[in-house]
């Protein structure tokens, strides 16, 4: 299925028809007549027959979840992904703490420290997915495009600890080495022609 189906939000294009609905009864006698009419008309069996007929025909219109899944739009905000740098495979996160600051449900926590090269290093990064409201602010504020939202919306678990696994969010190193890391195009990503708009720093020497 192409994305057009999702992006097309013009609801007026289809064929509409009016439903023939009688006026509602206002007095007691009218209500009594309606009850009698409905009781003996056998409407229930009409519905049951439709279900039975369609079942026998095997002409199924619903998505067979979980075997089948609907495609997800790139701007969909589900479980976060932590990206790696293309150049070095190192983690992109610089530990600036802006996501922690902007998070409106206070579910992001970072510990940082100085590493042996005197650079800032993230020693602990956790997102409490049980509390996250998937608003996307963290991805939007991230100056390095290090945190983005992915399409993984299935996060049911019987352990609360599973909701904060950093390793699960980070691009696996084999996937990175294979060049399969997907770049984010949604929230906070730069527009395709950004290069043309950047002003150069004057370096007159």
């Amino acid at each position, binding site marked *: 299925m192409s994305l057009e189906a999702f992006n097309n939000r013009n609801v007026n294009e289809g064929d509409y028809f009016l439903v023939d609905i009688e006026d509602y009864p206002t007095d007691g006698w009218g209500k009594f007549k309606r009850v009698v009419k409905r009781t003996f008309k056998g409407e229930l069996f009409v519905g049951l027959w439709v279900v039975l007929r369609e079942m026998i025909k095997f002409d199924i219109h619903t998505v067979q979840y979980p075997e089948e899944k609907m495609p997800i739009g790139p701007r969909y905000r589900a479980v976060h992904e932590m990206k790696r740098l293309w150049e070095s495979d190192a983690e992109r996160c610089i530990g600036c703490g802006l996501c922690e600051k902007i998070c409106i449900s206070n579910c992001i*926590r970072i*510990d940082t420290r100085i590493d042996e090269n*005197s*650079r800032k*290093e993230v*020693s602990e990064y956790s997102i409490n997915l049980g509390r996250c409201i998937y608003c996307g602010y963290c991805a939007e504020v991230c*100056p390095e495009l290090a945190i983005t939202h992915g399409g993984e919306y299935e996060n049911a678990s019987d352990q609360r600890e599973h909701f904060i696994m950093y390793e699960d969010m980070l691009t696996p190193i084999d996937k990175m080495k294979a060049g399969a890391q997907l770049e984010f195009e949604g929230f906070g990503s730069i527009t395709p022609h950004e290069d043309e708009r950047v002003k150069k*720093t*004057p370096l007159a*020497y």
Partner: protein
Amino acid sequence: MINFKVNGIEISAKKGESILDAARRHGIYIPTMCYLPKTTPNASCRMCSVEVEGQDGFVLSCNTPPVEGIEVTTDSETLYKERQNIMKMYNVNHPLQCGVCDKSGECELQNKTLEFEVDEQTFAVRDQYRKKKKWGVQTYDPSLCIMCEKCTAVCNEVVGSSALFIKPGGYKSEIDINLADCISCGECVSVCPVGAMASTDFKYTANAWELKRVPSSCAHCSSACSLYYESKHTANSNREYDAKIYRVTNDADFTSLCGAGRYGFDFENRVQTKDEEAFALALDKFAQAKNVVFTSQITNEELYLLKKLQEKFGFNLVNEEARAFQNFMKNFASTAGETLYNATLKDIAQSDFIVTVGASISRDNPMIRFNISQAVKHNKAYVATIHPIVDGEIKKLVTQYIKNEVGSEEAALAMLADTFVEDKSSQKEFFESIDLGYLSGESNISEEEIALLKHFSSRKKSRVLVIGEDVINHPQAANIAKIVGFLQKSGAFKVVINPTNTNTLGVCLISNLDEAEEGFTIGYNTKADFTLSAKGDGDLDMPALNQQEGTFVNIDKDLVTLNAGVVYKGYELNDIANALLGLRAQSVIEYTHQLGFKDIKFDELVDGVLNPAGEIVRGYKIESQPVKTQASIDEVAELGEYNGSVIYSVNPINQFNQFTKDSEHLGAKTELVGSLQFAIAAKISSGDDVKFSINGTTYLRHFRVDRKLTGTIAFNPSFDQDNKSANYRYNQVKIEVTNE
């Protein structure tokens, strides 16, 4: 008063005040980058330029005093352009790594860049490689440095160690350090407007906006400096409950902190639960106790509760160190005519003639050193130290070292009194008994040295005498106190007596201390039969001083406030008092107004820097009470002999007590340090393990020769002891070598 106009508003300046200071005092804003109110202006940034009517060009408002009737403009189109250009210059090649910079938005450069709307860069110069440096407690990143020179100014003027200096070289110039002179106070870190000078331990561990700031007072020495505990949760903990202190900051423009205050903050008691069994036991023990021994690292309110418990159970309140000070103050009052000494730290900073007796000024109370340094740098003060040890640590501050014989402090003070007191009529007997020749021979202070001191004092306007712990714990302390009291009364000197521990003065003023008797003893922060301990190693846990609210009385006689920097989860002394006395106080601060000073509630006390003009209020001052009786000073007693190996009990810089000992940022070393001369005399060599005992306490120490030291007296630290000793600090010892 000089009256002039700023932006059309009439304001007045005090004599010697600059245009900038006067304007700020009246709430008029002038931007600055390099100005630090507590030092003399560097005048390196030129941001504070203002226009003066009828004058060509700009005037630097930071170092120009106003003239009567001038009209000053602080803001105009040209000034704005000028300041914008200055900010552009500052931004040339300044790295744009604000995302990870340790300053995390508390940046003066960032603020002013935005304020003057620097949206494009028109200057450029070839950048160069600048190496980051790690200098003990601070790290320096020259590529972030804007050469405002605040750090060198503060190191030179306020700290007085002049460890930092500028390595000139035009665009290549940077800050460099003489590490041997650095006392690890971190003042340079606190004044740095950008992320160039950062704390090694704090760097990159937390963003400023995540930290919760709690104003409090330092718990390590009698200065009880005003500071902020900045705390934060860690990544894997609950928000409030498990917060820990990440750093300590201060209002660096106006106040200072030493290394222990700034880095020795991690002494909280991390007890996790209320130990009900131990609590029940403690309640029993109080009923049967004969003595309660405590240290002066206690708040006034807790002491008040101990006093209440004493009223009910009749035990002895014992604190030898505070009792020695209390006796000293009693004798002092008997000749001074009032209960308290009359000078403060600020008086030291503003004086121009300072004599210290029996004080190791950079170790006992760093703020005395800092203020002496300011007096030297700002008023060209004459500083003389009367001390048996020529301390190389303060050689940049001291004008005249007067070396006296160990134990002869009484003679030294008598000589001082004889030379400086003009009206000797009220203590005739004492002054007639003084035989200068004999005292000079005994104390080894020549009459010429005192004459020289007198000579240089003649033109000085304000003289301050600083009295230290050696004298307070002297065998002849009673008579010495009387001499000091008389020196104050005669007006020869303003006097500061350094209380020997954090709240010693408060303890002395609130309680009457007893001598210990045989019997069951409860110790508060000191080992006894039953120990209440904030260290977490006793029988019942107590909150540490960064976990409780309360008040101290500091060296300035101010009642200063403490607030809890981190949460404490165990029982407090208040719980014990509530259970035993049937009281219902939620917290100890409900007793603050009952302490016997002023009837002001804790929550109404103001403590800290109030406004951008630097007005500092610390609680309220405790007034000195007049004393009617007048005692006469006794004759100077004969000296005891101090031969052989003499050891001086003194802590290394930035170490004070058992709480600073375990700080991971301070790195304590409990070693005996002596000169080469001492080593030869005591027949030991550097690296030996030695054993000796002082007043019944046996010490096992590692001995190290310090080539900076001279003389035959070694330094033995006492910060690893529970309580401060009330004995004379010099002791003759027998040293045994116990190498394996």
